[in-house]
Every structure is written in C-alpha cells, then in structure tokens.
C-alpha cells in the first residue's frame, strides 16, 4: 500500500501540454472574442458619453446652439441643393401648355435698332412655325400679319401706304418655340453650357443656356451663331432670348427677345388684317 502523499505527488505531475497549433487556435479565438467585445463596448459607450455630456448645463446649451446652427446651415444648404436641375425636356413639356406668345424684341439691322412687338399663335398643325403671326415695328409702324386660315401674308408699310398681300404664309416667328428646336438642342448638348443663378431683372431663379450654334461662319449675319436663352426655373419656359451673329457671344447681339409672355389673351380676329382705307393694295403673285 503506497502512502497517500506519493499519489498526491504523482497526480500533481499529470500536466497537460497542448500542441502549438491548439494553443495558437485558442489564443486566436479568445483574442478575437476580446476584439469583438471591445468593439461592441465602444459602440455601447457612445450613448453613455452623450448622457454624461448632457448632464452639464453649459454643455447642454452649447450643444443646443450647435444643433440649431447646424440645422439652419443644413436648411440653407438643402435649399441650395434642392434647386431643381434643369432639363430641356422640361421646357418641351412646359411648352405643350402654351398656345400663344407675346414677344418684345430689339433687332439690330445695318446699324439701325428696331423695337418690335410680336404675337404668335400655335397653328392648326400644332406648331408656331407658320401659324398665325403678327409683327409690329415701333420705329415706323411697319406691320406684318400672317393669317393661317386665309393662307395669306400682309405687309403694311404706313410710310408708303401700301399693303402687299401674298397668298401664302411668308413670315414666321421661327421655329424657336417648337418642340423640334428643343429636341435639336438636346442633341447639341456638347455645344451647350448651363448656368444656374438669379435673373438680374426679375430676380427669379433661372438657368441660363449658352449655345454655340455649329454653323459655317460664311452664313448671313442674321443667322444665329451663338445664343443665350434664359429659362425661368419655375415655369421652365424661356423668359429672354439673345442671339449673336458671331460664335463667341461678342459685341451687341443682333436680336434680343427682351420680354416673352405666354398665353396672352388674344381676340379671335387678332390675326385678321384690316386694310387701311388709304392704303394701296398690291397683290403679289402666289409664287
């Protein structure tokens, strides 16, 4: 019978020696658990820090002030950031509700400055291009009326007291107000620049479209080579339209639409030309 002390000594010698891989595995797992715990602790600590900070009155008021300033700033920035981005398709859509326009134009021709008023109504074919049209010159009273239903164009020269009548539609406000033009602009975006800002005259939020028209330089002077169209960001419709006969927006523009009003109230016979009694009527050949 061996003494108990001997057995106790033997038992104490029973030691476990894990493999190096097992030790490494254990250490990795435990340290990973520690790392996860530290991360979780850090995440949980945030509200506690906030609670401690908020216990101090001065800090509380400071925090409140900072929050208010941040909110005001964010509102301002948000207001800026929510400025609607302009897209030409928006103008195309907006024009669908436009049936008539009134335009005031400054036209420069051979050094002479003409103040012109124009009215146009969407034609039966759905376009302003060769629809009803009236143009009056503020300088000499020259008046041009195009009546689609009569298929006639009247040129009245009060100085000469003559009315020239063409049995066709000779004059148009142009294609600028029609969908085709804006679709064309969409294709020309590489030549277009957009600037957002406030209109100096009306104070409205606007987008200014600058377009370098890719046409040969030998074209007539009266052909636009560069244009600036100012769109009202609210209505998406042009409020001014300026054209240069050079491609660099240089010098005085040859044409300025200084005022554009949409859907003015026009009587049914607004585009019916009344020949003055003292005018000499000259009927031009149809071709």
């Amino acid at each position, binding site marked *: 019978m061996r003494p108990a002390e001997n057995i*106790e000594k033997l*038992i104490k010698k*029973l030691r476990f*020696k*894990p493999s190096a891989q*097992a030790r490494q595995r254990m250490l990795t797992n435990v340290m990973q658990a520690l790392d996860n715990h530290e991360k979780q602790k850090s995440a949980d600590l945030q509200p506690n820090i906030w609670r401690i900070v908020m216990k101090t009155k001065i800090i509380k008021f400071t925090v409140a002030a900072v929050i208010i300033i941040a909110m005001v700033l964010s509102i301002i920035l948000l207001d800026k950031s929510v400025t609607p981005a302009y897209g030409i398709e928006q103008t195309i859509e907006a024009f669908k509700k436009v049936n008539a326009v009134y335009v005031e134009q400054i036209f420069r021709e051979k050094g002479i400055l003409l103040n012109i008023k124009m009215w146009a109504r969407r034609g039966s074919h759905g376009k302003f291009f060769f629809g009803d049209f009236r143009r009056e010159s503020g300088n000499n009273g020259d008046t041009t009326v195009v009546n689609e239903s009569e298929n006639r164009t009247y040129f009245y020269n009060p100085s000469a007291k003559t009315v020239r009548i063409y049995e066709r539609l000779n004059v148009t406000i142009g294609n600028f107000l029609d969908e085709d033009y804006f679709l064309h602009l969409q294709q020309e975006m590489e030549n277009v620049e957009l600037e957002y800002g406030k209109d100096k005259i009306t104070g409205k939020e606007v987008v200014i479209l600058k377009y370098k028209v890719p046409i040969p330089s030998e074209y007539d002077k009266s052909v636009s080579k560069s244009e600036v169209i100012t769109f009202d960001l609210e209505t998406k419709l042009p409020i001014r339209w300026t054209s240069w006969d050079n491609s660099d927006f240089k010098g005085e523009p040859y044409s300025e639409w200084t005022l554009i009003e949409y859907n003015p109230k026009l009587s049914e016979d607004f585009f019916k030309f009344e020949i003055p009694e003292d005018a000499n009527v000259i009927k031009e050949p149809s071709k």
Partner: protein
Amino acid sequence: MLEDRFLIWRFKHGRTDAFRRIYEKYEGFLLTLAANLLGDAGAAEDVVQDVFISFVQSAENFNLRGSLKAYLATCVANRARDRLRKEKRRQTVAVNEAEQIASHTDGPLQLVINSEELLRLSNALIILPYQQLETIVLHLHGGLKFRQIGQLQNVSTKTAQSRYRYGLDKLRSILDGEVKK
C-alpha cells in the same frame, strides 16, 4: 494575487495587454485542470477557451473576492461538469436509440506522462466517480481548499474532504491492484 488584481483593474480600463498577461499566466494551468477533469484534450481546450471568452465578456462587472486562479479553476470545473452532463445525456440517447454517436474523445490525451506509473495513474483517474475526481483535481491541481470545493459541489467542507480521501484510497487500491496483477 496583487498582480492579478492589478491586471484585472488594467483590463477593466481597456488594457488588452493586461488580459493577454492573465491568459498567458493561467492558460496552461487551466488546460491541465480541464484535461484531468474531462480526460479529453479537445474538450479541455474548448472549456478553457469558453472560460476566457466568458471572462472577457463579463470583465466590466467582475469583482474579484478571492484569488483569480481559484475563480478560473471553479469556472473550468463548472463548465467541465456541464459538458460531461451533456455528453452523458447524448450517450444515453445514443444507446437507447441504438445509434452510433462518435465519442467526444478525439484522440489520446496529451498529458506529459513520462513514466508507466503516471500512465496508470491517468487511467485510474478516469475510473473514479466524477465528484471524487473533481475534488482531487481541484484540490491538487487547482489549489482550491476543501471549503471552496464544497461550495462548488454544494456540499459541506467535510463531505468534500471525505470525497478527496475516498478518491485517493480508490486510486491507491486501483494502482496497487494493477501492480499485484
């Protein structure tokens, strides 16, 4: 002991190096304890790993009253007992259902046994009733007092002492019996 309290304090204040020191200090001791209780290397590693992970997770609320060594040894003993209970349940189910369930013993226990005597002792320990084995291992390897072992086993100090004594006697008889053969 003072060092342990200092390490725990540092660890509670975010010093992971302090935990590393605790781990390195007690890893080997706890593995030996678990291995002797479970008789299984893999199970011993799992238990010790779980004890350390649990220690990490509860460190903020941890208040050391006695020695850290005794505390960790108790944790190992509790987990080892839980594990054996579950294993026993599994084995019972397997027998009842006549199924083959792989033994939890993955391989030979890598005890540092450099003599035939120690090998026989190791085999004899496994035969002991678990409460006697636990008492012997916790007292001799864990350094726990019989009072602590009694609290752990929910018995009186005297009962713990008796289990220790009976366990040793049984071991002695097993070993002597083998020698006699």
